[in-house]
């Protein structure tokens, strides 16, 4: 009997699960080296040919799935992969080696190693990384040569806990969602793709486990505890029993929460609050609707750029947003325009921007869009065209001065004019809002409120920029305080500024999803909360037990506190 191993990581999605490991390997395998005798060389070539044709079929199937799911453009990487299979430069060298008596696996390995070295000498990051495409393909062929069954995410068994170095959007697309019971990955943080997907699928996930992928094997018994941020390998009978109990409580709780789905979100004294969902991909809509969200408060459109190797076209944008708009019907959907940095886009091979010393304060989001207006105009045209299918709204991220809102609106106006000329239909009065996440714009929120239809507070960045703290940096993470007196006052300022102009104020940062802060935020006057859909019902239950008048009193006393501890003490005293 193997010993129980406990690994500590970052809790990325709550809940517990007991299951079996499905290891998504970044296949490090042992390459066999054999001398092939002259009379067997022909057979070796046939073996290679067969493996290549199986690989070709696999890639073609993947291409089909990708383009069906996301549109033709997303499948372009698969086209490049198919061409690698037929690359004459590679096959020529492989053939020479096989003819000299080297086995196919080792021949491919040697050629790829040699070519990778050439790529290592390239200065340009994008081209340098293309060697990974070559390595991926060579691994696929070698897997097929070895007759190993390639572990494809589409053949998951139920109750599988997917363990991987990291999960990409392409990985999560191929997964059969109902089969996945949890995620455990080596890398990633609280807002990584894996975390967001897990939250929307309502399955537990622990990320940042460093080297779990090297410690497990396929089918190994595993517990993922997304509440505590730990993973237990080979759990003992006793541990399993404890978790089984916890799992059952979790199921009962979830059933209990379901009864709130169709109840209004209203405080004890009758103040209506809107609860919206944050989403990353259109696939999450079913979970949004199942949890009774009143709308989508934040669609992170970055997914459009992450799952592709080319800039999405106007039509890609249109297809994507139209799908969401149709499914959501009259419910509001706020699409945040691209919130990526130049560094990220360069890494993805979509742009070619020099390295930045400090990307968080660099060329990202609206700044990038205003420097390269075509990116924004293409996206806005897509949103506008899709606006006829539902209730779409536009939100600009990382606004730091009012000029940026005006400039973006000029581009929006151009987009409308161009569509008009083309005879395309769109909603001419589409609502436009600003994300308030940079202190400079929060301070002049009263002026912002006159320029936009709505404001949404992005707390993750607002806190990070206001307190000047990187919460991923362990040495200073404790300084990241959502209840810092300065943050409370900023939030209050923004909400009051919106209300003065008769405009609602929402919040789409992590702070909005926490039960802990609900009373404070309601007291400060927040109108809309947007969060991962799995957290909606829990918050709704909480809000229905809160009195708005009392919360206002609480907020008033909190705004007088000078230190964070005093804020916490005041809340605690109030709850007693």
């Amino acid at each position, binding site marked *: 009997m193997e010993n129980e191993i406990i690994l500590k990581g970052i809790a990325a999605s709550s809940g517990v699960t007991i299951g079996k490991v499905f290891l998504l390997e970044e296949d490090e395998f042992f390459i066999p080296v054999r001398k092939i005798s002259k009379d067997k060389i022909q057979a070796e070539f046939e073996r290679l040919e067969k493996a290549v044709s199986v690989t070709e079929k696999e890639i073609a199937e993947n291409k089909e799935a990708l383009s069906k799911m996301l549109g033709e453009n997303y499948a372009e990487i698969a086209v490049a992969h198919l061409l690698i299979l037929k690359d004459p430069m590679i096959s020529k060298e492989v053939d020479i080696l096989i003819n000299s008596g080297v086995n196919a696996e080792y021949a491919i390995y040697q050629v790829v190693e040699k070519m990778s070295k050439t790529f290592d000498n390239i200065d340009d990051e994008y081209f340098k990384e*293309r060697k990974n495409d070559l390595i991926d393909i060579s691994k696929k062929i070698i897997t097929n040569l070895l007759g190993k069954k390639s572990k494809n995410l589409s053949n998951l068994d139920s109750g599988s806990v997917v363990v991987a170095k990291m999960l990409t959007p392409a990985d999560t697309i191929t997964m059969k969602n109902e089969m996945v019971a949890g995620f455990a990955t080596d890398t990633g943080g609280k807002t990584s793709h894996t975390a967001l997907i897990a939250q929307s699928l309502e399955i537990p996930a622990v990320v940042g486990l460093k080297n779990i992928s090297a410690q497990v094997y396929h089918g190994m018994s595993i517990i993922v505890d997304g509440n505590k941020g730990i993973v237990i390998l080979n759990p003992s009978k006793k541990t399993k029993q404890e978790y089984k109990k916890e799992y059952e409580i979790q199921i009962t709780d979830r059933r209990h929460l379901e009864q709130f789905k169709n109840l209004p979100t209203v405080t004890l004294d009758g103040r209506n609050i809107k609860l919206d969902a944050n989403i990353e991909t259109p696939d999450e809509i079913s979970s949004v609707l199942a949890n009774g969200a009143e709308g989508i408060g934040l669609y992170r459109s970055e997914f459009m750029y992450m799952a592709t190797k080319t800039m999405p076209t106007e039509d890609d944008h249109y297809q994507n947003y139209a799908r969401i708009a149709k499914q959501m019907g009259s419910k509001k959907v706020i699409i945040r325009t691209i919130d990526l940095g130049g560094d990220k886009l360069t890494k993805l091979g979509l742009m070619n921007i020099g390295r930045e010393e400090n990307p968080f304060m660099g060329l990202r989001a609206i700044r990038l869009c205003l420097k390269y207006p075509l990116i924004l105009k293409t996206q806005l045209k897509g949103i506008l065209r899709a606006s006829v299918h539902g209730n779409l709204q536009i939100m600009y991220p990382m606004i730091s001065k009012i000029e940026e809102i005006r400039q973006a609106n000029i581009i929006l106006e151009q987009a409308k004019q161009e569509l008009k000329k083309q005879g395309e239909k769109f909603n001419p009065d589409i609502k436009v809002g600003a994300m308030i996440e940079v202190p400079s714009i929060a301070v002049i929120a009263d002026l912002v409120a006159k320029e936009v239809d709505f404001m949404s507070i992005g707390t993750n960045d607002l806190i990070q920029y206001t307190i000047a703290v990187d919460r991923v940096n362990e040495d200073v993470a404790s300084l990241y305080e959502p209840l810092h007196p300065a943050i409370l006052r900023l939030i209050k300022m923004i909400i009051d500024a919106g209300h003065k102009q008769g405009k609602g104020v929402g919040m789409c940062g992590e702070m909005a999803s926490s039960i802990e802060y609900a009373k404070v935020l309601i007291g400060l006057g927040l109108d809309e909360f947007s969060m991962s859909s799995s957290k909606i019902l829990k918050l709704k239950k909480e809000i229905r037990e809160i009195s708005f008048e009392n919360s206002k009193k609480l907020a008033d006393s909190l705004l007088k506190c000078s230190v964070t501890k005093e804020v916490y003490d005041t809340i605690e005293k109030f709850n007693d």
Partner: protein
Amino acid sequence: MMKEKKIKIVNKLGLHARPASLLVQTAMKYSSNITIIKDEYKVDAKSIMGILMLAASCGTELLLQTDGADEQQALEGIEKVFNEGFGEEI
């Protein structure tokens, strides 16, 4: 007789994966040997990894050589996809 011509990359992103795929697919339509030369590097235009290895960005000048039965058509066909910026932003 081998044909050759200087060509320039006009699309913004240079010969990244998508244009490189398009270039290779175009080259494959011809039976001629097609070579692309950048400085001292010489690669087969039907080899995607070869093309990517050039790490050719926008504005780079390349020498295109075609040799074979359909060398004239190949030269023209390939020049065309370059000049059209591979259908991308220029």
